[in-house]
C-alpha cells in the first residue's frame, strides 16, 4: 500500500521547499518473536518466545520492554547492561536517536546486533497497522510519541492473539510524564525508567547507573545561577552566518583548568581564541564544538604561563576562590603577547565519552553525591551519585557525563564500570589503554578463523609466483628480545663488480586478505602499541611472531626490494618482487656491531654486513647533505625485574652504527616504493608527509639559542641542520643535544595521506620529495596497504574495489593517523607510569638537570640520565610566596634575586609524590642553586663537578 509523506523543509539558502516522498506500508514485517504463527515466523527471531529478563516486582510475569527516545539517549548504559534483555526498539525511536546523537546510535546498533541480548528493531513506520499520519495541529514530537503508543498497543493486542500459555506483557518505558499519562489512559502499561529499575529484585546496582536528569519542571533550584544560558542552535547558526559568533573546537588547557583555547574552523588557516575564567568557559568540555563571541580588544588577554590545577581539597561550590585565581591570570603582559579572547555563548555539539578516573569521596559521611576526578586533566570533575562510595574509593572507575545545569559548578554524571584498584599495574595499564582509545580486547573467534591452519608450509602454488631467494645470505638485525621480525637485508658483489643490495620485508598481505574480519580488525587497530611491559598486537600472534616473522633458518614468504648499486651507493637498477627467503641469522644490534668490528670474522654474513655498513655511511652523508635532520629525543629503556616485572633501572638508549645502517636501508626502501606506487597510482597511493613547521613554531628554539649567543637559521631544513651542527659551546657540550631536543618539540606531526586528496608530498625531516611506510607491515596497517598497492603495480596481485576508492583511502589515513597519535601518547604514558614505579622503589634521588622551558611560576627541567622531564614549582601552598619576576622576551624567571635562563644547569631532588593516587607526580625540588626558603638540602653526596657555564649571580 502506498501513501505519501509531504512536508516542508528549509533549504540552506533560506528558501522553503515542499518535499513529497513515497511511503510504502508493508504487511510482511514480523513482530520479532520466534515461532510467531501470525507473522509467519522469523528466520532469525530476535526476541525470545518466553522472555527471561530480570525479574521485576512491578511486572511479575515475562515481559518485553519498549523504551522511548529520551530514555534511549540518556540511559544507554542501563540498556547495555547484560541484565536487560528482550527489548523492542522502534524505528521511530531509532531514527530520532540517529539524528540527535551519533555515538549513542552506534552503541544501540551494536547492542541490537548482539544475539544474546535479544533486542529487536521493529520497523513500525512501514508496518501497515502501526503507521500514523501527523494530525493537524500536532507537532512532530507529539506525533512520534503517539506512534510509539500505537506500536505498543499493537504489540499488546498481537501478543494476546498468540494465545501462549503464559501471558507475555509489553511495557512502555518513558520518562516523559505526559506520554506516560496518555499511555495509561489508553490502557498501556507504562513506567518511568527509575520505577522499573528500582523494581528489579535481583539487581540493585543498576540504580547507580541511572543517569541523573534535570527534572523538567524545576530548572531554577536552590543555588544561584553561575553560568550564562546557552543560546539555542538556531540563534547560534544565525550568529555564525552573520559573523557575530565563530564556530570551533574547544581545547582545554592541560596545565590550567581556568583557561582554554578554541580552534576556529576557518577555510584553510586556523585561528585560535583564548577563553579565560570559569564564567567565560561556560560549561564547555574538551573536544566539544562550541560557538564563541569575541570580546572587545580591551579585554584581550595573553595565554597564561601559570600552571593551575583544580585542587582536590577545595570546597566544591566556592566560586569566589575561582574568581581570585582568575584575577591572577590577568597579569599585565606586553601587547605583543595579547591574543584574541572570547567567551563561549553556546554549544553546537557535545563530544562526551565515558571517562576513566577516581572517586574523591565527599567529606560528609553518608553522602551519596561525590566528586569524580578524571585521569585526563583536561576534563572537569564530575559529580556522581552512588551508594557504593566506600567500595569505589581507591579504585579506578569509568563515569559518563549526563548534563551540566547552569547552577552547578560541576557537571552531573553516572557511574558506569569499576576497573580495579588504582596503582595496580594491570588496572593502570587498562586505564591507559582506555583513555587513549586503544583497542586491546583479545581477537574474536571470527578474526581468528581467518588465520591459516597449522602446520603451515609454503605450497607449490605460492612458489610459482615468487622468486626463490633462499640461496642468498640474508640476515636480520633487531633489538634484543624482538619476536616480530619485519625486515632482513643482504648485500653481495655481482659479476660486473656492482653491488646487489636487497631489503626483504615480511609478506603480511599474503596472509591478510582484503575485506575479511582479520583485515577489518587490523585496520581498526592501525598499529601495534608497545607499552613498557606489554605489547598490544595489531595482528594475532600466530602471524606476528611466527608465520610472518622472518626468523632465522626457516623458509618465509617475503616482499623484496632489490637494488643494483655501484660502490658509491648510486642506484643503477631497482626491482621489486615477491619472494621466498631463508634468513641465515637473526642478530641484535650489538651482535652485528661486534661482527663488523672483529677482524677475525670473515664469513658470508659478516662480509654482507660490512658491505651494507659501508654503503649506509655513504647514503647517510648524502641525505645530510640534502638537509635531513638528525634530532635526538631522550629515549629511555627500562630494565625489568624478571619476576615482578617492576623496573630495576633506567637506561638511555644508545645508538650504535648498526642502528643507523638498518635505518638507512629502510628509508631507501620506503622512498623507492613510494616512487613506484605513485607512478602507478597517482590518485590512490598511500604516502607519508611531514609538513614544514611554520616559522612561529621555531620561536622557542631561536629565543633559547639567542640567550646563549648562538644563531639558529630556520628558513630551510638544510639551514636548520647546518646551524644545529655548528651550534657548539665548547664549555657546554650537552648544549647541542639540548638544542636538538628543543628542535624536536618544534616539529609538526608526520601524517599519512592519500595522493589524490593532497598536493604537498614533501617530507621535511628526511628531506625527501616523496615517502611512505613499507618496511613494517607486521606492526603498521599502512604498510599492508602499501604492500597491496605495490603488488598490483608489479602484477603479483589484483585490486579490490576499496583499494581504488580515494575517499575510503582518505578515511583510512585519518584513522591510521589518529591511532598512531594515540599509540604514541599511550607509550609515553606507560613510560611515565613505570618511571613513577621506579622512583617509588628508589626513594629520593639527587640528579643533575638542565632547564628546558621557563614559565611564570615554575621551570621545566630535563634530567639527561633518566631522560626525565619535570616541573619545579616555586610557589608552595603552606609556605610564604617568594617574589617572582617573569620576563617572557628573553625568556627568564627571577626568583628573589636568582635569575634562571633556558639551558641553565641545576641540581634537583627527585621523589615520588604519591599524595594524589591518580596523578602520582614526580616531584622535583631545587637543590642547587640554593635559594632561601625554596631549595632543598641535597640528600645524596652527588656533586656536579663538570665545567659550569658562566653562571649568573647566585645568592649565597
Amino acid at each position: 500500500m502506498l501513501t505519501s509523506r509531504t512536508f516542508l523543509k528549509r533549504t540552506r539558502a533560506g528558501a522553503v521547499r515542499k518535499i513529497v516522498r513515497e511511503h510504502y506500508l508493508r504487511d510482511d514485517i514480523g513482530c520479532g518473536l520466534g515461532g510467531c504463527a501470525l507473522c509467519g515466523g522469523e528466520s532469525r527471531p530476535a526476541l525470545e518466545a518466553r522472555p527471561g529478563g530480570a525479574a521485576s516486582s512491578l511486572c511479575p510475569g515475562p515481559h518485553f520492554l519498549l523504551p522511548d527516545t529520551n530514555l534511549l539517549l540518556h540511559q544507554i548504559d542501563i540498556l547495555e547492561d547484560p541484565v536487560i534483555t528482550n527489548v523492542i526498539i522502534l524505528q521511530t525511536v531509532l531514527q530520532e536517536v540517529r539524528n540527535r546523537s551519533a555515538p549513542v546510535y552506534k552503541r544501540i546498533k551494536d547492542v541490537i546486533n548482539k544475539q544474546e541480548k535479544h533486542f529487536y528493531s521493529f520497523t513500525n513506520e512501514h508496518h501497515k497497522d502501526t503507521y500514523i499520519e501527523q494530525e493537524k495541529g500536532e507537532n512532530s514530537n507529539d506525533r512520534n510519541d503517539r506512534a510509539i503508543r500505537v506500536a505498543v498497543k499493537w504489540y499488546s493486542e498481537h501478543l494476546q492473539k498468540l494465545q501462549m500459555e503464559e501471558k507475555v506483557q509489553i511495557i512502555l518505558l518513558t520518562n516523559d510524564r505526559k506520554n506516560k499519562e496518555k499511555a495509561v489512559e489508553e490502557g498501556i502499561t507504562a513506567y518511568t525508567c527509575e520505577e522499573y529499575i528500582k523494581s528489579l529484585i535481583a539487581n540493585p546496582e543498576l540504580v547507580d547507573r541511572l543517569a541523573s536528569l534535570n527534572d523538567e519542571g524545576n530548572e531554577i533550584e536552590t543555588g544561584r545561577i553561575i553560568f550564562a544560558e546557552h543560546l539555542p542552535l538556531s540563534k547560534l547558526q544565525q550568529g555564525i552566518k552573520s559573523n557575530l559568533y565563530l564556530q570551533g573546537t574547544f581545547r582545554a588547557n592541560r596545565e590550567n583548568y581556568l583557561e582554554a583555547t578554541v580552534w576556529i574552523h576557518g577555510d584553510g588557516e586556523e585561528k585560535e581564541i583564548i577563553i579565560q575564567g570559569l564564567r567565560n568557559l561556560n560549561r564547555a568540555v574538551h573536544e566539544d564544538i562550541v560557538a564563541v563571541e569575541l570580546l572587545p580588544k580591551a579585554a584581550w588577554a595573553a595565554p597564561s604561563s601559570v600552571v593551575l590545577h583544580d585542587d582536590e581539597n577545595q570546597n566544591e561550590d566556592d566560586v569566589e576562590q575561582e574568581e581570585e585565581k582568575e584575577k591572577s591570570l590577568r597579569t599585565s603582559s606586553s601587547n605583543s603577547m595579547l591574543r584574541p579572547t572570547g567567551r563561549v555563548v553556546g554549544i553546537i555539539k557535545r563530544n562526551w565519552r565515558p571517562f576513566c578516573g577516581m572517586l574523591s569521596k565527599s567529606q560528609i559521611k553518608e553522602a551519596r553525591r561525590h566528586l569524580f576526578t578524571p585521569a585526563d586533566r583536561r576534563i572537569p570533575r564530575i559529580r556522581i551519585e552512588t551508594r557504593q562510595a566506600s567500595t569505589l574509593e581507591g579504585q579506578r572507575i569509568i563515569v559518563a557525563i549526563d548534563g551540566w545545569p547552569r547552577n552547578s559548578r560541576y557537571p552531573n554524571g553516572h557511574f558506569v564500570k569499576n576497573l580495579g584498584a588504582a596503582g595496580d599495574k594491570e588496572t593502570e595499564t587498562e586505564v591507559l589503554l582506555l583513555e587513549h582509545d586503544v583497542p586491546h580486547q583479545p581477537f574474536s573467534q571470527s578474526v581468528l578463523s581467518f588465520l591459516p591452519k597449522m602446520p603451515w608450509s609454503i605450497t607449490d602454488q605460492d612458489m610459482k609466483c615468487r622468486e626463490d631467494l633462499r640461496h642468498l645470505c640474508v640476515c636480520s638485525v633487531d633489538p634484543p628480545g624482538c619476536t616480530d621480525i619485519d625486515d632482513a637485508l643482504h648485500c653481495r658483489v655481482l659479476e660486473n663488480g656492482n653491488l646487489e643490495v636487497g631489503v626483504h620485508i615480511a609478506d603480511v598481505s599474503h596472509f591478510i586478505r582484503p575485506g575479511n574480519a582479520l583485515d577489518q580488525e587490523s585496520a581498526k587497530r592501525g598499529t601495534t602499541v608497545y607499552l613498557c611491559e606489554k605489547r598490544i598486537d595489531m595482528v594475532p600472534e600466530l602471524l606476528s611472531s611466527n608465520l610472518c616473522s622472518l626468523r632465522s633458518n626457516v623458509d618465509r614468504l617475503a616482499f623484496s626490494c632489490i637494488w643494483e648499486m655501484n660502490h658509491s651507493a648510486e642506484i643503477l637498477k631497482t626491482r621489486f618482487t615477491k619472494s621466498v627467503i631463508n634468513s641465515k641469522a637473526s642478530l641484535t644490534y650489538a651482535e652485528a656491531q661486534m661482527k663488523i668490528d672483529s677482524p677475525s670474522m670473515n664469513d658470508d654474513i659478516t662480509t654482507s654486513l660490512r658491505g651494507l655498513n659501508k654503503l649506509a655511511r655513504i647514503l647517510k652523508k648524502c641525505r645530510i647533505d640534502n638537509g635531513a635532520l638528525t634530532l635526538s629525543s631522550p629515549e629511555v629503556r627500562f630494565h625489568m625485574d624478571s619476576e615482578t616485572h617492576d623496573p630495576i633501572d633506567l637506561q638511555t638508549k644508545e645508538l650504535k652504527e648498526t642502528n643507523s645502517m638498518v635505518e638507512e636501508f629502510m628509508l631507501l626502501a620506503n622512498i623507492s616504493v613510494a616512487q613506484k606506487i605513485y607512478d602507478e597510482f597517482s590518485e590512490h597511493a598511500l604516502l607519508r608527509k611531514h609538513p614544514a613547521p611554520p616559522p612561529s613554531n621555531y620561536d622557542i628554539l631561536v629565543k633559547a639559542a639567542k640567550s646563549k649567543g648562538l644563531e639558529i637559521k630556520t628558513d630551510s631544513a638544510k639551514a636548520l641542520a647546518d646551524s644545529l651542527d655548528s651550534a657548539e659551546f665548547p664549555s657546554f657540550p650537552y648544549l647541542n643535544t639540548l638544542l636538538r631536543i628543543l628542535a624536536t618539540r618544534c616539529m609538526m606531526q608526520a601524517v599519512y595521506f592519500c595522493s589524490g586528496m593532497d598536493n604537498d608530498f614533501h617530507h621535511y625531516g628526511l628531506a625527501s620529495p616523496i615517502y611512505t611506510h613499507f618496511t613494517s607491515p607486521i606492526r603498521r596497517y599502512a604498510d599492508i596497504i602499501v604492500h597491496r598497492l605495490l603488488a598490483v603495480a608489479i602484477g603479483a596481485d589484483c585490486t579490490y574495489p576499496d583499494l581504488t576508492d580515494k575517499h575510503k583511502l582518505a578515511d583510512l589515513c585519518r584513522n591510521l593517523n589518529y591511532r598512531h597519535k594515540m599509540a604514541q601518547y599511550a607509550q609515553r604514558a606507560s613510560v611515565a607510569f613505570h618511571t613513577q614505579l621506579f622512583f617509588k622503589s628508589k626513594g629520593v634521588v639527587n640528579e643533575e638537570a638542565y632547564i628546558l622551558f621557563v614559565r611564570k611560576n615554575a621551570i621545566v627541567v630535563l634530567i639527561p640520565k633518566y631522560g626525565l622531564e619535570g616541573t619545579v614549582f616555586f610557589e608552595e601552598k603552606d609556605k610564604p610566596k617568594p617574589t617572582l619576576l617573569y620576563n617572557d622576551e628573553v625568556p627568564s624567571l627571577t626568583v628573589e634575586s636568582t635569575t634562571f635562563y633556558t639551558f641553565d644547569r641545576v641540581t634537583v631532588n627527585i621523589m615520588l609524590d604519591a599524595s594524589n593516587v591518580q596523578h602520582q607526580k614526580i616531584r622535583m625540588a631545587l637543590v642547587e642553586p640554593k635559594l632561601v626558603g625554596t631549595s632543598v638540602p641535597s640528600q645524596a653526596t652527588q656533586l656536579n663537578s663538570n665545567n659550569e657555564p658562566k653562571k649568573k649571580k647566585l645568592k649565597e
Partner: protein
Amino acid sequence: MAGLELLSEQGFRLDGRRAGELRQLRARMGVFAQADGSAYLEQGNTKALAVVYGPHELRGSRGKAPHAQALVNCQYSMATFSTAERKRRPHGDRASAEMSLHLKQTFEAALLTRLFPRSQIDIYVQILQADGGNYCAAVNAATLALLDAGIPMRDYVCACSAGFLEDTALADLNYVEEAAGGPQLALALLPQAQHIALLELNARLHQDHLPRVLDAATQACRHLHALLDRVVREHLRDAAALLGK
C-alpha cells in the same frame, strides 16, 4: 544532522521498499485521442506522458532520412513544474537533448523500421513529475504509446534503473537515492530475447560489482514487463468490448 539513511539495517529503504522491489506502477493507454498512439505512465511519483505520431511523411530535409528505413524522431522534455525547483529551460538544454538521443537509439533498435521506408515516426515524451528514473519512465511510456499506435515492434522495451549502496544492489532508484551520488545504471531491455537496447552507467563502479547490479536491473525489467503486459492485455480487452466484438 546525519544524512538520510538510504538502506536500514533491516534491509528497508527510505520509502519502505526492500532492495529489489519496484515502485508502484500505474499506466493507461489511449489517453490522447488526437494522436496516433498515447500512453500515461506513473512509476512511483515519476509521471510521464508519451505521444506517438506516425508513420507519416518525412518532414524537414529528406537528407537526414536513413535509406530504406523509417526515421525515428524523439523529443524528450520536462515540464517546468516537474522538479522541486521550477525549471527555467524545458526544451533544448543539454540533458534533454541527450535523453532524446538515448530514446531514439533505444527505439530504433526495437521498432521494425524497415517496413516504413521514407517515412517518419514521432515520439514525444513529456515528464510531468520527476522523482528519479526519468529516462526509464519515458521509455516505458513510449513503449505503451507505440503499442497503442499499432506500429510494429520487435518486442516490448522495458527500462529500469539500478544502483549500488553498501554492498547491495538496489533496483528502481527514486530521486533521493539518485542524488546521494552513488553509481547509477539505466538498463533498457527487450525482455523476450533478453537483448539490451541501451545500458548507461554514470559514476564509477568496480568491475566486481557490475554483474550484481546488472542482475538486479534485469530482474526489475522482467517484473516491469509482466506489469506492462497486464496493462496492455486489459486495454485490448476493453477496446474489444467497446467495439462489441
